[in-house]
C-alpha cells in the first residue's frame, strides 16, 4: 500500500486568488476522485502534485519521499494527463510516444518500440501510428494522452478532467483503460462529474475555493446524509421563497419544473418526499457549507 500525504499546501496567485488554502489530505493506492466546481483549485492541486507548480507552503510526501525536494525522483514514478492535452504538429503518434518514453528513461530502443506498440494497441490506435497526431479527433487525442501517461509504469497517475468533451461511449472506454492500471497505483482523477467518482473511486475529496471541504469514501459521504434529504416538485415562482425558508441544496428541472432537494433533520412537511441521498447531494451540501 502506497500513500501520498499532502500537508498544509497553500498557494496564492499574484492576483490574490487563493488557489490552494491549507490543503491536507492522505491519498492511498486505488482510485481517488477529486470533485469540485470550476475554479475550485482542482487543477492547481493536481499540478502541484505533478511538480509543475510550486506551492507557497506545505509539503507532499510520497511514502518516504519528499516530493517537492526530489522532483526528479518523483517524476520517475509519475504519469500525468493534463486537462488540456495538446500535441506537437507534424509528428506521428508513434514519434510522440517514443519521445515521451525516452524522457521517462526507457533507453533501450527495442524495448521502447515494443512498449509504444503495446500502448498503441491498448488504446486501439495501432493502425494510426504513422498518422500526424495533430489531425486526431478529441477522443483519439485523449487516448494518446492516457497512453503516454501509462509509460514507465507510474506509481502515481494523475488525470485532470479527462472526460471533458468526450461522448458517453468514449468516456466509458476511457474509464475502462483507467481501471486497468495496477492495484498498487495511486490514481488521482479530477472531475466535475459526480457519477464518475461514484462509479470508479474508493476515496474522494471535494474542493471549493481552494479548500478541501470533504474527504473520505463516497459511501461515508452518502451515509452522513442518510434520512436528511427530501425532495419536492415546486413551481418556478416558489423557488425563492423555498430558498429562504429551507436549506435547499440543489434544484434541477425535471420535465420543465423545478425539483428541489432540501437538507433537514426531519421531513419539513408532508409535501416533501424523503429520498436516498446521492453523491451529488453530498457534493452540493459540502459546497454550500463552504459557500456560506
Amino acid at each position, binding site marked *: 500500500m502506497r500513500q501520498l500525504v499532502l500537508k498544509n499546501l497553500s498557494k496564492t496567485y*499574484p492576483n490574490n486568488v487563493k488557489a490552494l488554502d491549507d490543503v491536507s489530505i492522505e491519498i492511498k493506492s486505488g482510485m481517488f476522485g477529486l470533485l469540485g466546481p470550476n475554479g475550485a483549485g482542482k487543477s492547481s492541486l493536481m*499540478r502541484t502534485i*505533478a*511538480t*509543475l*507548480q*510550486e506551492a507557497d507552503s506545505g509539503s507532499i510526501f510520497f511514502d518516504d519521499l519528499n516530493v517537492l525536494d526530489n*522532483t*526528479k*525522483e518523483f*517524476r*520517475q514514478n*509519475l504519469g*500525468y*494527463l*493534463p486537462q*488540456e*492535452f*495538446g*500535441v*506537437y*504538429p*507534424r*509528428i506521428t503518434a508513434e*514519434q510522440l510516444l*517514443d*519521445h*515521451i518514453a*525516452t*524522457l*521517462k*528513461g*526507457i*533507453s*533501450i530502443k527495442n*524495448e*521502447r518500440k*515494443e*512498449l509504444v506498440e*503495446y500502448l498503441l*494497441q*491498448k488504446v*486501439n490506435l*495501432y493502425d*494510426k501510428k504513422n498518422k500526424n497526431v495533430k*489531425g*486526431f*479527433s478529441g*477522443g*483519439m487525442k485523449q487516448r494518446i*494522452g492516457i497512453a*503516454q*501517461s501509462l509509460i*514507465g*509504469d507510474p506509481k502515481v497517475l494523475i488525470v485532470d478532467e479527462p472526460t471533458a468533451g468526450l461522448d458517453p*461511449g*468514449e468516456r466509458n*472506454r476511457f474509464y*475502462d483503460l483507467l481501471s486497468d492500471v495496477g492495484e498498487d497505483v495511486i490514481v488521482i482523477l479530477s472531475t466535475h462529474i459526480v457519477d464518475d467518482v461514484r462509479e470508479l473511486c474508493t476515496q474522494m475529496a471535494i474542493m471549493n475555493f481552494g479548500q478541501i471541504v470533504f474527504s473520505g469514501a463516497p459511501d461515508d459521504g452518502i451515509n452522513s446524509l442518510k434520512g436528511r434529504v427530501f425532495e419536492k416538485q415546486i413551481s418556478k415562482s416558489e423557488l425563492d421563497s423555498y430558498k429562504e425558508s429551507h436549506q435547499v441544496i440543489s434544484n434541477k428541472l425535471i420535465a420543465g419544473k423545478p425539483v428541489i432537494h432540501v437538507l433537514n433533520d426531519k421531513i419539513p412537511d408532508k409535501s416533501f418526499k424523503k429520498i436516498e441521498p446521492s453523491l451529488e447531494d453530498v457534493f452540493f451540501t459540502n459546497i454550500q457549507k463552504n459557500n456560506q
Partner: protein
Amino acid sequence: MFKNFFLSELRYSFRQPMLYLFFLIVFLLVFAANVTDNVSIGGAIGNVFRNAPNIITIYSLIMTIFGLLFATAFFNNSALRDHKNNFQEILFSKPIDKFGYFMGKFLASLFLSTVPLTGVFFGIILGSKVAPLMGWIEADRFGPFFIETFINNYFIFILPNMFIGGAIIYSLAQEYKNTMISFVGAMLIIVGYSIAGELVSDIDNEKIASLVDTFGIRTYSITSKYYTPLEKNTLNPSLSGLILYNRLLWVGFAAIILFASYTRFSFTTKKSKKSKKNKSDLNKVILSVPKKAPKVQVFKNSALLHFKSFFKLNMNSIYKHVTFKILFVFSIIQLIAGLATGFEYFGLKSYPLTYFMVDQVNGSSSLFILIILVFFSGELVWRDRDVQVNEVIDSTPHSTLIPLFSKTLSLFSLSVVIHLVLILIAIIYQLISGFTQIEFSLYVKDYIYNMFPIYFTMCAALVAIQVIVNNKYIGYMVSVIVLLGFDIILLILDVNSNMLSLGSTPYMIYSDLNGFGPSNTGVFWFSLYWILFSLLLLSLSGLIWNRGVKKSFKERLNSINSNTSKTYSIIVSSIGVLFILTASFVYYNTQILNSYKSSDRYEELAVSYEKYYKKYKNLPFPKIIEAKYNIDIFPKKKMADVLAYLTLTNNKEKPIDSILLNVNKQWDLSFEFPNATIISKNEDHGVHFYRIDPPMLPGDTLILEIKNKYETKGFSNGGETTSIVKNGSFLNNFEILPNIGYDSSKEIGDKNKRKKLGLPPKERMPKLEVDCGVNCDKNYLTQGFSDYINVESIISTSIEQTAIAPGSLIRKWEENNRAYFEYRLDHPSQNFYSFISAEYEIAKREWNDVDIEIYYDAKHSVNIDMMLDAVERSLNYYTENFGPYYHKQARVIEFPRFSTFAQAFPGTMPYSESFGFIIDLEDEEDNNVIDAVIAHEMAHQWWAHQLVGANMQGGTLMSEAFSEYSSLMTLKDIAKTPMKMREFLKYDHDRYLRGRSGELEKELPLYKVENQQYIHYGKGSVILYALQDYIGEDKVNSAMKEFLEKYRYKTPYPTSLNFLEILEPKIPDSLNYLIDDWFKEITLYDNRLKTAFAKKLDNGKYEVSIEIEAFKIKADSVGNEKKVSLNEWIDIGVFSDSDEENLIHQQRVNINDSLMRFTMIVDSLPAKAAIDPRHILIDRVFSDNTKPVSFN
C-alpha cells in the same frame, strides 16, 4: 454585404497586434534614417533636404519590399481564416454574395497592408520636427513638405504595389488554401526586384530592368538618376514614362490574376477524405485485447538520449515548417539571381573565384538566416506551451536544461544546413561556368572564421532572450531591438565598440594575395568573446527556465536552486570566468593598447585642431629637394621600420624658426633636425612643435633624419591596417612620414556639420586666376612641400617576397635572411611614391628602352598578356602624340583587394587584385577594363607626373581629364567601328550626369573643377573626346603636346587657363563657342528626333527626312537651368540597322532653331535616323535621339 465583410475584416485586424507592430517597424526605421546619418535606407542623403520628395519616395519604395511581408500576412490570413477555423461550412451555408465576400475581404486586406507603410510618412514628418528640436539635425536640412509627395507615393507606389502583391497572394491562397504556396507567390515579386537589381548593374539593361521590377523601385531610381539637387528637392514622382508603363504592366497583370481567381472562386468546398475517415473511426469499438505490457528497464540517467530525442523532434518539426521552407527557397533564389547577373563594371564579370562565391553565399544567406533564427527561436522555445504539450513533457523526469540546449542546437543546425546547401549551389555554379579551381577549404575556413561565430552567438542569445523574457511576442520584440535597435542606441550614446553590439567583430576581407586578414587576430578574439557571452547568457537563462505552469519572474528566480546541479554550477561559473578573462583581454587590446576615439571625440578634436592650429596655416616651411629612404617591412609581424633622409632647403624669403609636425599616433616617430628642439607636444592632436635655433636662413639647406616605426600591437576594435600585411603591403610616402605644417585635410568637411558646430564655411580651393602668383608655386598633389625631386630607396622584406619602389632597380641582395632592393629614380619626379612588398610572379616585355613589368599573384595569370599589350599600346600612343617617357620601366603591381583602384606613381602603378586581374574578358571584344585602366594610369606618367596643375581650381583637368581622354584615344585606336566608342563613352556620360545629381556642394564648370571626380573623369573625358571629334584628334593632341612642352617638369605650375590659351588658336572660329559652352560654363543639350520618314528615290537611293527638336541648356551650380539660343553644329545620321551598329550616313549641320527639318540621301535601306548618333554631346535623355524610320 460587401460592406459587412470589408468592415469585419478591418475590425478583426485592428484588434490584432500585427498591424501595429508592422506600422511601428516601418515608422521606427524611417524615423531613425531621418534623424541620424548612421541609419540609412537606400543610400546616403547628401546635399538635398532630408525630407525631399526624392528621399521620401525612395523610403516608400524600399519599405514596400517589407510591405510584401505585411501583405502576405494580411491577404493570406484573410483568405484562409474561415477555412482554417472550419468556419466556412457555417458561413457558406448562409445566403452571402460572392462579390461581397471575395472583394470585401480583398479590399480590406489591401487597405490594411498599406497602413503600416504610411509609417514612412509619419516617420519622416515626425523626424523633421523632432530632429531640429533635439539638436540632432539642423533645421535648415529640412525643406517644405509637398502634399503631392504623399498622395503620389501612396497611389503610384504603395497602393499598386500592395495590390500587385496582394492579388497574387490572395488568389493563390483562395486556390490552394495553403500558406506555403501563398508565400511562394510573394517570392515571385522579390525575384522580380532582385533580377531588376542585378540587371541595373550594367546601364545597357536599364530599360528592361525598369519594366521587370515588379515594385517599380528600380524604375524610379532610373527615372530619377540624373536629378539635380534642386529637382530632388522639388519633383514628386509622377505617373508617366517608364513608371507609367511599369505600373500599367504589373497592375494589369495583377488584375487579370485577381479576376481569374474571382471567376474560379466558389462557396462549395472540397471535403477532404481524411476528415471523413477520422469520423468513421470515432464510432469504432475497441475489439483487440492487448497482450500483457512488455517488461522494460527504466534508466535514471539518460541525458544524452533525452537530448537526442528532443533534437530529433525539433528538427523534424522545423524542416516541415512552411516558414522555414520559404525562407530557404528565398535565400536560394537570392543566391542564384546574384550569381547569374551581378556585373561589376562596364558590364563585365569576374571569374567565379571561390572568394566571390563565398561573398555571394554570405550575402544572400545572412539576412534570411537571421530572420529564420529570430522566428524559430520563439517558435522552438514556445512550441511545447503553444501546443499545450508542455505539462506532459515537463512532468517527465528529464533534466530541465536538456530541452534548452537541444533547442539551441537545433536552431544552430538550421543555419548550418542552409549555409551548406548554398555552398553546394555555388560550387555547382562554378562548375557550370567551367571554372574548376574550386577552393573547398576556403568555403570551410570562411564559414569557421566568419559565419559560425555570428550564427552561434545569435542562436544562443536569441534562445536566451526568449527564455528570460518568457513571453513569445515581447521576446521577438526584444530580439529585434537587440539586433537592430541596440546599434542605434549605441550610436546616439556615441559608444562605438564591437564589444557592445551582439556578434560584432572587426571587418575582415579575404584576398588571394593576403588570405584572411589583416584583422584575423581581432576577429578570432571577438568571436570567442561573443561565443562565450552567448553561452553564458544561455546557461544562466537555463536557471530560470520556466518548467511547468507559467511562472512570474520572482517564482522563476526562486526555483533557481531546483534547476541547478553542482556540475552545472561549475560549468556555468567556468564559462563565466572564461568570458571575463576573454572580455578583459579584448578590452585591454581594443580600449587600452589600441585605443580609439568615438566619433564625437573625433569631431571635437577636429574642431579644436582647426581652432588652435589654423593660425599656423601660413607658417613657412622648408621644401624637400631630395629624399632617401631605408624601409624594412616585416610582413609576418605587420611591422615597418622607416629611416628617411630628407634634404630640405629654405626657399622662402624669411628665416624659418619653427616647424609643426602632424604625427600619426600609430607610428613611433623620432626626429633629428639640426638645431631643432621640441617646444610642445600635443598628444591628442598628434602635433609636435619644434623651434629651430639658430633659424634656417633663406637658401640654407640641411638634412633631416626621420625614424618612424609602425608596430602592430595586439588587435584593435576597428581592425588592423591594410597597409602592412603578410602578403601585399602597400605604403606611400605620405603614410610613412609625418605631415609638415597645418593640415587642412583634418578639418571637418561636411558643410552642414560645420555649420552645426559653429565653424566658418570650409575654405575651398584657391580661385582660378590669370595672375596666379604664389599659388602657382604649389601643385595640388604636393601642396608646395616639394617639386620634382630625386629619390633613392633601399627597401627590405622577408626573403620570399619582392619589394618594389619607384625607379630602376640598382641592386638586389640578401642579408640576415631578408631580401634587399635598392631603387633610384631615373628622372626627378613628383614627391609621390609607393612601397610595395609581396610574393610575386613577374611578366616582362621590352619596349624600346623601357622594361614593361607586371607583378602579379601566381593565381592571377589569366589577363597578364592583355596588360602587357595595354602598357605597350599606351607607350606607343603617348610618346608619339605627347612626348617622351622619362622612366626606364613601366610597372603594374597587383595589391590585395582591400580597395578597388589603380594608382600611378612614377613609372610604377599599383593595381588592385579585384580591378582586372580576375575579370573574365574571354568573350569581350569591346569593353575591356584592363585596356582602359592601364591606359589611364599610363597617361598619368605624362599628365600628373610630367605636368601637374597648380593648386587651384581646374588643377585636375590637366591630370585626370587628360588621362581619361588619353585612355579613350588608345581605345579609339583599337575600336573597330565608330559606334564602339559610344559604348565606352556612355559610362562617362553616366558618371557625369549621376555625379552632378549627387553633388554635395556645387557643380563647377570643367575649367574650374575642384577635384570633383564626376567632373574631371566623367565630363572631362566626354568634353575632350567631343572636342577632338569637332576640331580633330591631331589638333587636340598638338595643343596638349605644346602645353606639355612648355610646362614639363617645370615650376611655376600651369593652370587650366594656360591650357586654354594654347588650345584656343587651334579652334576654327565657327566652333569658338565650344570653349565657353564646354569648358567655362555648364552646358547640357536636350536633343530629340521628332519624326523620321524615308522614301525610295528613282535612282535607287533613299531620301530620309527628319524633324528634330534641339535645346541648349545652361545650368548653374545647384541645377537651376535655363534654355539659351542656339547656333550649334550637331551631327545627324542614319543607321542601316535597328541595333544602331551600322552608321551609314553622318553629316554635321548647323542648328539655329529649336525645331528644324533636314533631308539626307543614303545609298542603302535606312532603319533608324538620329541626331547626334554617336552620343558626343551631353544629353540627359539620349534614347529619344534616335527613331526608326517610317516609309511613306
